[in-house]
């Protein structure tokens, strides 16, 4: 469009473009947030039960960590590309690989959290008459929650940072802005895409941290 000529393509940010394209920017930001939520949701749905199982069964642990480790190693563009013939331009193309990357991160932190519960604490709980199921539910898991939330935060930031790659296969939220800017040699959309991606990651990270503080007062680190 000839309108492009009205904008300055050589500066990193042309505010008049930003002002004229507010709706478009918000749409991409929303898509980015939705893809993040879907990927993390699917990841948690699989990783939480699997992680708890892995924490208490050494054999499950070995297999789970190895399998999710291989998934984690597959480059994102390759994973998107492998799914393309089946899922095409649907969101599943982006969400399935992104969710698979969260598995290793979340599961490893669940295992580390459960294993970090001091033995004396478990023994004390058993001594107080907890059955092992009750101890897991009322002692082990609550004490492991801070480590699990740490995993959730890493998973969130990782997914938000990877979504732009999906722009190369027709998805990608803010990645679409980056791609659009790059393809036209017009820097402003690229800058806007990057800044908002990082901002989204920071906001989500802080939101989870805040939720953790509110929901789990015991997770606040006490200074020795």
């Amino acid at each position, binding site marked *: 469009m000839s309108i492009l000529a009205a904008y300055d393509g050589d500066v990193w940010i042309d505010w008049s473009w930003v002002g004229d394209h507010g709706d478009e920017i918000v749409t991409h930001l929303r898509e980015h947030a939705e893809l993040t939520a879907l990927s993390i949701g699917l990841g948690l749905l699989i990783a939480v039960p699997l992680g708890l199982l892995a924490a208490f069964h050494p054999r499950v642990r070995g297999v789970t960590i190895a399998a999710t480790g291989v998934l984690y*190693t597959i*480059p994102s563009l390759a*994973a998107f590309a492998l799914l393309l013939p089946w899922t095409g331009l649907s969101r599943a193309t982006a969400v399935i690989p992104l969710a698979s990357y969260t598995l290793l991160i979340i599961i490893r932190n669940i295992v580390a959290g459960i294993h970090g519960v001091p033995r004396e604490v478990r023994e004390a709980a058993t001594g107080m008459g907890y059955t092992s199921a009750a101890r897991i539910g009322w002692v082990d898991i609550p004490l492991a929650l801070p480590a699990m939330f740490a995993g959730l935060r890493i998973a969130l930031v990782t997914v938000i*940072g990877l979504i732009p790659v999906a722009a190369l296969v027709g998805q990608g939220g803010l990645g679409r802005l980056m791609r659009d800017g790059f393809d036209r040699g017009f*820097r402003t959309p690229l800058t806007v895409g990057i800044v908002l991606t990082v901002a989204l990651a920071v906001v989500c990270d802080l939101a989870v941290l805040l939720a953790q503080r509110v929901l789990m007062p015991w997770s606040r680190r006490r200074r020795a």
Partner: protein
Amino acid sequence: MNYFGDVWDWLRDGQHWTGDEGVPNRLLEHVQISIVSLVVATLVALPIGLLLGHFRRGAFVAINVSNIGRAIPALSILLMAVLVWGIGDPPSYLATIGVVSVPAFVALVALAIPPILTNTYVGVAGIDPNVREAATGMGLNGREVLRTVELPLSGPFIMAGLRTSAVAVVATATLLAYVGGGGLGRFIIDGSRISYSDPRVFVGALFVALLSVTAELALGFVERVILPRPLRASSSAVSDDAPRVAA
């Protein structure tokens, strides 16, 4: 769906295995840019991490550089680098170490530095102060403590950082094809411009995934060879976790 039949036919065609656009050359391009970037990143990040850890300075920067690195999309660094430097020929001093494209090199090095730096710092700064005191008590000076005590003891952390970086670099090198570079991503990008069920898309993705797993396994092997047995335990548990530092 005859998709895998097409892929098989493509793989059996001898033409796809020779010349500049054949699988071996694309693989070589991919490996070359990955190794050069990883080596340069290590040369930058390792000394900084060791020194910061040794003097216990800059904890905030050393640890948060990884968190920031994770949040900034690798793709965006690459796209920005291309808009800044273009995709033209690199200066000769970079060409001699095997750099074909300046923006690719800059993006991959920038991507690889944070995990190595953070892990090295955490590895060194987390060493039990009693161990350092013992080393000093035995008459080692600061430099000797760093070389003979802190470097080996932080070995598992350093290797974990290297593995994280290596996997990220191999993955991101796939994106170079989008900005006109070579490597295995070429098959994915070229194929998907024709059709998403083009056999090249699958072939490219398959080889990149295999290369990535191979890089991880190869560094695991290197780790086994260079680290003394007592230091090898479960280092893979370290790589991406929130670093623990003796505050």
